[in-house]
C-alpha cells in the first residue's frame, strides 16, 4: 500500500476493501505511517487521530468479514478540516478561543462520510475561522505547500489541499466561503469543489459567513471528488437552508466526460482575464480552453459585467455575518476563558481579545461597522443588491452556455509573509472565486498546468445552480486528456 501510487484513489481502494482484497486497517496504517514521516515538515494536521482511525478501519474490516457492505467509501482514509465538529474529538477552527472544545455532536458531513465507510485520520489545519487565503492566519502553525516549502498552500482550507497533494490522505473535507476550497486546490494542484449553496449541509460546520459558507470535498482526481460529494450531499433536516432536490450522479458524470464534450457549450467570461493575472496562468487557462474545444466543446464568449463589484460585495457580506457568528465566543459556555475577570465586561473583552487572532478581529470590527444602526442600507443593504446583480449575471450567462471555465487564482502560490502586511492585497487573492459564493452556484477547481518554477496552476469550472454534473463532466473530460493530476510533489521526509 503506497499512498503516492496512482491507484491510491477512492475508485481503487473502496472496491478493493469492499471485496475483502485489501484491509481497511492496512490502508489506514500506511497513511498514518506516512503522516508520521512527512507531516512534521508540512504541518497539515492539527490533530492526528490514529486510535480513532484504526478503530473505524477495524470496524470496516469487521463489516466486510461479516458480509455487510461498509459503503461506497469503505476504508478510504480522509482528512477533516478542523472546522467540522467531530463528536469527542477536539475541534478548534485553528483558533485559540476554541482551545479545548470537544463537541458533543457530529457534523452532518462527517457523519455521512463515516456512515459510508470512510476512515478519518484526523483534523486538518486552516486559517483561523476560515479567514484567509494563505493558511498564515492559523493559531496553531502554518501549512507548507508540498510543491515548495517556501510557498503558502492557499487558504483557508490549506491543510486539506496540502494533505491531499502530499498523499497524507486520499480525500479531505473543506469549506469555501470565498474560494477557500478552490484557491488552495489550485495552489496545491488537487481537485476541489464548492457545490451549490444548500447542496451539502452546514450543520456542525463552524460558521464564518452563513450565507456564503459551502462545505465540499478535495481529492486528487475528478471522479474521487465526485464520489465524495455524492456522499456528503443531500437534504438535512438540521439545516433549514439545505435543498431537497435529489443528489446527482456526480461520479458517473465525471466518467462520462472521458467520452468527450460534444454539444457542451463552455462559456469564457472576458472579465475573468483582467489585468493583474499572471501571464503563465493566463496561458495555461487559454490552453485548457483549447483542450476542451478539442474534446468537442463549443467555446462561447460571455460577459459577467458586475464581476468588478464582487470583492467589495463579498467583504461587506462576509464581515457582517462573521461579526455576528463570532459573537457566541464569549468565554461563558465553552472554549477558552480569560483568567480571573473582574467583571462581566472584562470577561468578554479579555476572553475575546486574547482568544481571537488578528484577522478575525479585523473582520469582527469591519462587520460591526457595516451593521451599525443607520448604516445598514448604505453597506449591507447595498451589498445585498449588488449580490443580486452578480447572481443575475450568472443566470444570463448560463442561458448561453452550460459551464464557465476560468482560472481559479490569478497568481500561483506566493511566498510566506509576502502578502501578510497588506490585507487588501490578500483579499484580492479571492478575486476569481468569490462571485460563485455570492451567487451560490457550483464551482470546481482542478489542475491545469505548472509554472516554470514548478508551482501548480488551477482551472475553475462553474455551473448553474445544481449544475454539479455539468462541472464534473467538463472537469472529467479535461482530466482524461491531460496528465497534470498524475504528478506528485517530492517527499520531504522530515525536512524542515
Amino acid at each position, binding site marked *: 500500500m503506497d499512498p503516492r501510487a496512482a491507484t491510491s484513489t477512492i475508485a481503487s481502494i473502496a472496491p478493493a476493501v469492499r471485496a475483502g482484497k485489501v484491509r481497511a486497517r492496512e490502508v489506514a496504517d500506511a497513511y498514518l505511517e506516512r503522516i508520521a514521516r512527512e507531516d512534521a515538515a508540512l504541518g497539515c494536521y492539527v490533530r492526528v487521530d490514529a486510535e480513532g482511525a484504526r478503530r473505524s478501519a477495524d470496524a470496516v474490516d469487521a463489516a466486510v468479514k461479516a458480509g455487510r457492505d461498509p459503503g461506497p467509501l469503505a476504508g478510504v482514509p480522509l482528512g477533516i478540516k478542523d472546522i467540522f*465538529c467531530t463528536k469527542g474529538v477536539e475541534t478548534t477552527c485553528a483558533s485559540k478561543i476554541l482551545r479545548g472544545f470537544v*463537541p458533543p455532536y457530529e457534523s452532518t458531513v462527517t457523519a455521512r462520510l463515516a456512515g459510508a465507510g470512510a476512515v478519518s485520520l484526523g483534523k486538518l489545519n486552516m486559517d483561523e475561522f476560515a479567514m484567509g487565503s494563505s493558511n498564515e492566519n492559523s493559531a496553531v502553525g502554518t501549512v507548507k505547500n508540498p510543491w515548495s516549502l517556501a510557498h503558502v498552500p492557499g487558504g483557508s482550507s490549506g491543510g486539506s489541499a496540502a494533505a491531499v497533494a502530499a498523499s497524507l490522505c486520499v480525500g479531505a473535507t473543506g469549506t469555501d466561503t470565498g474560494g477557500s476550497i478552490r484557491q488552495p486546490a489550485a495552489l496545491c494542484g488537487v481537485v476541489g469543489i464548492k457545490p451549490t449553496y444548500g447542496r451539502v449541509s452546514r*450543520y456542525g460546520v463552524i460558521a464564518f*459567513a452563513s450565507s456564503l459558507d459551502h462545505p465540499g470535498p478535495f481529492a486528487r482526481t475528478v471522479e474521487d471528488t465526485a464520489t465524495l460529494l455524492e456522499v456528503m450531499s443531500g437534504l438535512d433536516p438540521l439545516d*433549514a437552508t439545505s435543498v431537497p432536490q435529489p443528489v446527482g450522479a456526480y461520479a458517473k458524470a465525471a466518467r462520462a466526460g472521458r467520452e468527450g464534450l460534444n454539444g457542451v457549450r463552455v462559456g469564457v467570461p472576458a472579465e475573468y482575464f483582467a489585468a493583474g493575472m499572471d501571464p503563465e496562468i493566463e496561458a495555461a487557462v487559454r490552453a485548457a480552453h483549447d483542450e476542451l474545444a478539442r474534446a468537442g466543446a463549443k467555446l462561447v464568449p460571455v460577459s459577467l459585467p458586475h464581476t468588478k463589484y464582487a470583492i467589495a460585495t463579498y467583504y461587506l457580506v462576509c464581515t457582517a455575518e462573521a461579526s*455576528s457568528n463570532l459573537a457566541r465566543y464569549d468565554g*461563558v459556555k465553552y472554549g477558552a476563558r480569560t483568567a480571573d475577570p473582574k467583571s462581566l465586561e472584562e470577561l468578554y473583552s479579555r476572553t475575546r481579545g486574547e482568544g481571537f487572532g488578528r484577522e478575525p478581529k479585523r473582520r469582527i470590527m469591519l462587520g460591526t461597522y457595516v451593521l451599525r444602526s443607520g448604516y445598514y442600507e448604505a453597506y449591507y443593504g447595498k451589498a445585498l443588491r449588488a449580490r443580486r446583480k452578480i447572481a443575475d449575471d450568472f443566470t444570463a450567462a448560463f442561458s448561453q452556455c452550460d459551464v464557465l471555465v476560468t482560472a481559479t487564482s490569478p497568481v500561483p502560490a506566493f511566498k510566506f509573509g509576502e502578502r501578510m502586511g497588506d490585507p487588501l492585497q490578500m483579499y484580492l487573492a479571492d478575486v476569481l472565486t468569490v462571485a460563485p459564493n455570492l451567487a451560490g452556484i457550483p464551482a470546481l477547481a482542478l489542475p491545469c498546468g505548472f509554472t516554470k518554477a514548478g508551482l501548480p496552476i488551477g482551472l475553475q469550472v462553474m455551473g448553474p445552480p445544481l449544475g454539479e454534473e455539468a462541472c464534473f463532466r467538463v472537469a472529467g473530460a479535461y482530466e482524461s486528456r491531460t496528465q497534470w493530476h498524475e504528478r506528485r510533489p517530492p517527499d520531504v521526509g522530515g525536512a524542515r
Partner: protein
Amino acid sequence: MSAPATAMHPKYEVVIGLEVHVQLATKSKVFSWSSTAFGAEPNTQTDPVCLGMPGTLPVLNAGAVEAAVRLGLAAGCAIRPRCRFSRKHYFYPDLPKGFQISQFDEPICEGGAIKFRLHGEPHSVRLTRIHMEEDAGKNLHAAAGVSFVDYNRAGVPLCEIVSEPDVRSAEEAAEYVRAIRALVRYLGIGDGNMEEGSLRCDANVSLRLHGAKEYGTKAEIKNMNSFKNVRDAVEYEVKRQASLLDKGERVVQETRLWDASRGVTQSMRSKEQAHDYKYFPEPDLPPLVVDEAYLAQVRASQPELPEDRFARYTGKDGLSPQDAGVLVADRETAAYFDAVVKAGAPGKKAANWVINEVLARVADPRALGGADLAVPAAALAELVNLIEGGTLSGKLGKDVFAKMWAEKRTAGDIVKAEGLTQVSDTGALEEACKRVVAANPEEAARFKDTPKLMGFFVGAVMKETGGKANPKAVNEILRRLLG
C-alpha cells in the same frame, strides 16, 4: 379606543403602550428539539442548538408558527404571506449566541386589536405587530461575585405583542394583559402564567396635558409579574411622572424596574440606552411563507373566542353582561357552562349555578377542564333539571349540590338514597295543610285581614313535611282552605 371607565387624571392624559411576551406551549423549542417544560433542573433541557454551540443551526418549529398565526388571526391581524427572521445582537451571559433570533422589519402579524370589557364598557387596543422570537436563558446570582446560567428557557418560543399607545389607565393596562391571557388560553397556545413568566409585560408610560398632540417622554417599566403588579406599577409611574411635571421637571427616557415589595419603580441605570442591536436578516433561516391554504386550515380550526362567546351568551342565551363576562373569562368555565346547557339545563339557571356554586368552589377556573371534576357538567344539568321539574326545592338543591361536590355522587343518587323527593302529591299535601290549619285556628281566623300570615302557614307545612313539600302547591292548597 373608548373612554376609560377609571378615574382620569385631572391634568394629564395617561398614554400607555404595552409589550407583552407570551411563551408558546410547544413541546420542543422554537429552533431545536429539547423540551420547553417549566421547572426542570437547570440545564437539563438543552441541546447544542439552543446552547448556540459552534456550527449548530436553527430549524423553525412549525408548531410555533401555527401558534403565532392563531394568535394573529384571533386578534384580527394581517398575516404576512412572507416574513423573515433577524438577528438582534447584544452580549449577555443568558444569550447563548450573542444574538437573539427575532423578527425586525418583517414580523409575522401586523395590525389587529385586542378587545375586552372594563366595567362592562367595551375597549379595543390596537396592535402594532406580533412577532416571533426565542427566549433567553436565566442568570442565577448566587453568593457575591458568583453567577450561574440556566439555559432551559433559552430557545423557548415567544410571541411579542406590541400595542399602539392606546391604553389610558393602569386598570385598562391590567385588563388588556388579562385579555391577552384569556386569548392565549382559549387558543391553547400557552398557559399565560405571569408568576412563572410564561406571560411577561413591559409598559411604556408617558403623560401629556389633556388635549396635547405631542406625546410626553416615556419610561419603560419592566418586572411586573402579576396583573396587580401591572396596575400598581403603572399607577405609581403615573403619579411619579405627574409629580415631576407638576414641579416643572422633566421625565427621563429610561427603563425602570417595578419593585413590588416596596411598591415603587426604580431606574435600571443600565447602559442599555445606547444599544445598537445591529439587526440583519438571519441567514440560517429561509423566509417563512404562510400561504392562503395554510391560513384557511388554521382559520377552520380556530376555537370560539371570548368576545364571540360573550355575544352569544348575551344574545341567544339571554344572560346578563355581568354573568356572560364571568363565564367567558376562562375557556374552561365557558366550556363547562356550554356543556351544562347542552346536557339540557336552561341557560340562565345553569349560569347561576356555575357562577355561584361551581366557581366558588375552585381556586383556578382551569380546574373545570379537568377529567376528575367532582361535579361534571352533565351531573350539574341533572340537578338543575330536578329543581326545574319540581322534584327538589331550590334550598334542597343547594344541599344536594354540596353533597355531590363533597362525595362525587349524582343528584339522582342522593335524592333517592335520602328520600329527598319534594312532595307534590296533592292528596298528601292536602292532608298536611288541613292538619296545620286545624292546629292553628286563631291564625286561620285572622288570615282574611292579614294575608302575610301565608308565610307562617307555608313554613308550618314545610316543617310538617320535613322540607319536602312543593311550595307552589302548598300555596295553592292553603289559599283554597283559608279563602
